[in-house]
């Protein structure tokens, strides 16, 4: 069986990689900030996955509109849907 390398040598390598990773992270964050700024937003916010910004259809105030839409005649509903899908 092979013997593990010298612990000090491995520790030095891990430390070096950690510094390289920090630098890559800094570059990535700077690139993201530049992309966000280029997109017109001056504020780079903390990132979150769990929000669903395009889940507008389930907003509370849309409930009566959805109710009316659901009860439209089929042909009219499809025509409206087709129009909105374009």
């Amino acid at each position, binding site marked *: *069986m*092979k*013997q*593990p*390398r010298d612990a000090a040598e*491995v520790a030095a*390598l*891990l430390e*070096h*990689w*950690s*510094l*390289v*990773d*920090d*630098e*890559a*992270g800094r*570059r*990535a*964050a700077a*690139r*993201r900030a530049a*992309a*966000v700024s280029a*997109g017109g937003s001056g504020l780079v916010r*903390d*990132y*979150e*996955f769990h929000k*669903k910004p*395009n*889940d507008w*259809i389930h907003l509370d105030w849309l409930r009566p509109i959805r109710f009316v839409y659901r009860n439209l005649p*089929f*042909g009219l509903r*499809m*025509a409206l*849907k*087709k129009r*909105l*899908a*374009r």
Partner: protein
Amino acid sequence: MVATANSLRGLGFGKRHWHLALNGSPSSFGRRIVLGDDPAAEWVVFVAAGDRITRDALHFAAEAAPDVDVLYGDTRHDVKRDDRLPSYQRRPSFSPERLRSHNYIGETLVVRRQLVNEAGGLAALTATDAHDRNLRLCESAKRIERIAEVFNVTPSANFLPAANPEAVTQHLSRVGIAADVEFDPQTPCVRVRRRLSRQPLVSVIIPTRGSSAELRGQTVPLVVNTVQTLLEKSTYQNLEFIVVADTPTPPEVRAELARLGGDRMMIVDYDQAFNFAVKNNIGVAHSSGEFVLLLNDDTEIISPDALETMLAFFADPTVGIVGPILHFEDGTIQSAGHIFSPDPTDMYRLQPADTRGAHNYVRVQREASSVIAACLLTSRKVFEEVGGLSTQFPGNWNDIDFALKVQQAGYRVIFTPHAKFFHFESKTRVALRIEAEVAKLGHRWGDILDDDPYFNPRLQRYINLWRSDFHTDRSYEEAMG
């Protein structure tokens, strides 16, 4: 033909601007119209006869940056029945590996006139089929841009990309890739099987706790099964194994590993708190191979030539990571690469083993934004250049971060369905989401997570990929080009 001509007239182009090229039988869809057959024209628009070109295609050409010389976009198919909605082929960003497998770009292409001349001229490019034409144009292009807008409206409901194996063979010869071409006419797609010119040492890094589980009715130590099957089934044997074992790993497991691996086996003790990234980094630091295979201890090789398939990609110095397709024990797909939606998602998870995917997505080799670290091959040079796996992600998304760092450094990440492994992960496992890790990942890569280049921003996000899209009544499965 009339529809195409009318759409061109509608955009303000008279007859002197377009040229009809007959390709094959006049009654077939082989006819192509080439818009802008004027030596002074700046752009050439290729459009199939019968298709209607949209104003967007021309608008984005007019607005294109000076170094952009090829543009392509999405396709819409209008259904005549009133109760049916249009369907779309939404395309990802330029993926050269995928273009070698099939013509996912389609028939409509907007190209600078100068590039057309460099790629053989209008007459030659209209005399051939769209796959051959696109390969010729894209291999000469400086910058190819995908626009997530509809470029053409087609009467054809068949969105399956075509593939021309002869065109791929010629393309490989022109760009100097040593490979054999295999054609699957049923799908259809081309497999580019690169030739492996040498047999470098591959270090297999396996973090483990020495756990046992029931596989095919028998309780076995998972890590022993992983090593044993790799030794028995893989046709590539220039391997060394670095097993990073937690302190509680049973002595009998260690003994069995030592017996199996012999002088190719190294067991490194790990007594710190769990950190997947640290364990892998330690393994790589102890290894000496030119290439590094990060492998979970609950995996098993399926295709005997999986390592050769993955390794052969590295003849191209722009390749940084190659990932295989992973299957659960019952054969269903565990991961066919990642997609950011924006939550990183395993593509086609839990779908049947023979799934072709939208537009044969699962059958083709392609670029991906990330692949799962349960099994990925990278070179030591690339691993060291980006600082290995980031220890800031002890549990989740270290593979996402690693793949994005590798791409930031200028390399490509490749997914191949022709290398197959089992991943005996629990089907019901839900990754524990740690908000601090989410924030860190987003801090580095938030914009890419929000707009995965190998996805399409027009596709609905934040919903399971296989659920119906309430806007169009079409599933993403059908929409993803």
